[in-house]
């Protein structure tokens, strides 16, 4: 092993390690570390803490959001939620993890399935590869509760998507598995 190469690879390794550490710190430092966090406000039984919010049963109904909490890209709250079609290439609602790093590479639904279209299931390409199993997101009632919920913590199709146990509006966002809004809390405005 030459000394020059040892120095080169040592420097690259140190730079890469530093960059990864900095990136990790930067992206985890966004979550405030509270020594004695106040107990989370729990909604009264039966009440919907997210009333009039994008997590409601029909997020694409009326536009409940004054300001768009979801940023560019996919905005279920916009007047025209399909202005920027998230289903074009990069967003695959049928994937195991629709927010996975490379949803384009593994999109079984492709161009055929568009949840934002007037007739999202006119051609249902998801039938064969339906991660919901019994409940088909392309079915006539795509928002009926999924028997097998592929969305884990956050299920926009559930009858009570904002139930305390899986409340995407909580301070610490439990929507990791399926969170179309990313780190932003869509319910913060309410």
């Amino acid at each position, binding site marked *: 092993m030459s000394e020059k190469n040892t120095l080169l690879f040592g420097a690259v390794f140190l730079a890469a390690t530093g960059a990864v550490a900095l990136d990790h710190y930067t992206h985890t430092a966004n979550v405030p570390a509270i020594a004695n966090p106040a107990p989370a406000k729990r909604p009264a039984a039966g009440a919907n803490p997210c009333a009039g919010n994008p997590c409601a049963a029909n997020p694409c109904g009326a536009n409940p959001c004054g300001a768009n909490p979801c940023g560019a890209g996919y905005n279920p709250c916009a007047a025209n939620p399909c202005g920027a079609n998230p289903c074009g290439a990069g967003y695959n609602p049928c994937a195991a993890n629709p927010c996975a790093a490379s949803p384009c590479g*593994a999109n079984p639904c492709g*161009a055929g399935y568009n949840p934002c279209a007037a007739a999202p299931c006119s051609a249902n390409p998801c039938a064969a590869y339906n991660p919901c199993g019994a409940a088909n997101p392309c079915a006539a009632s795509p928002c009926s509760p999924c028997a097998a919920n592929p969305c884990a913590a956050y299920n926009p199709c559930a009858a009570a998507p904002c139930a305390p146990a899986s409340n995407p509006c909580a301070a610490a966002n439990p929507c990791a598995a399926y969170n179309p809004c990313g780190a932003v809390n869509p319910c913060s405005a309410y």
Partner: protein
Amino acid sequence: MSETTLKARPDVPGFDFDKGPAAITAVLFVVVGIAIAQAVDLHQAVLYGLGGLLGISLYHASFGFTGGWRRFSVEKRGRAMRSQLLMIGVAAAAFIPMLALGSPLGNPIVGAVAPVGTSVLVGAFMFGLGMQLGGGCGSGTLFTVGGGSARMLLTLAFFIIGAVIGTAHLPMWLELPSLPPMSVGREFGVAGGLAVTFGGLALVALMTVIVEKRAHGSLEATPKAPRAGLARLFHGPWPLVWTGLLLAGLNIATLLIAGHPWSITFGFGLWGAKIAQGIGIPVETWEFWNWAGPAKALGNSVLEDNTSVMNFGIVIGAAFAAALAGKFAPKVSVPMASLLAAAIGGLLMGYGARLAFGCNIGAFFSGIASGSVHGWLWFVLAFAGSWVGIALRPAFGLDGFRK
């Protein structure tokens, strides 16, 4: 550097390995794994471990697509290509039925199925050309960097730059004509999909056999290994066929654990985007990085990205294998023309992989194994690009069709 000799049997030669680098890379591998488990979770650490096994396997067998394709194109020897086809076939035998089940172990899985369009045509051709100039494909670049190749470090740097530029342009490319994603498993059912995939792979293998027999009269015999037993396990070279089967098994494990097949180049684009952000380029405003998946990856720690942690594992695993083989970082001086080829090749591969929905791993290996038609299109166009790349290599002082 101190060296240690290990003898497996008295009648076969042992091997020398670099004790220091082997110990350092082994400790490093474990420390990074623990750090990932602590920083993220055990799931990511397991994926990193899978990457490590992939890196060791790739290095010890020198399992590169670039060299195998070049050897077939130039020397008309198809042994390496047939190993690749066998590997894909074995993976397909598991992928296609498991994908049809949807959730074989309870967690949903999804295959590497992508649209069949203009972007794949152009991107795969660029990738094939680039891999001959760069001297390695997606996996080849990673494992040779791990092995200490300074030239491939440059290829990787430009691979990353090309991938970021690709993310800027991909939405525009996707406006061009394209067919939707097509999977033979979905179109023909599990049995039909397997039959079509096996038939296609067998046909290509048969073509390599015919070409090789016409050129040489017979198929190349597997060379006798200089070592056996433990000495061969630690030092290499590992047999191509068995390594191909091992890689297929590791890809199947990746599918079950990560929920998607093995892929490499998304990580490169992500690393580049994060670096670009760091120097003030607002990639977060680009359309690609506002799609849900990429946006999430860009907003999260790189350690939460499956592809990235597997890539880290491949590099460190290959470094460990190189130290065991006593071959880590052989030399640093490379001719300027060769460095230029590495840079151009890296750029073409990065850009091409983004357009083509993956590289030799994400599109060719995982794509065909998933039954995706885009994988086959990728293969044809990348092979054509590779042919042109081989023809261009002499312009950079590298071996082409003539030595």
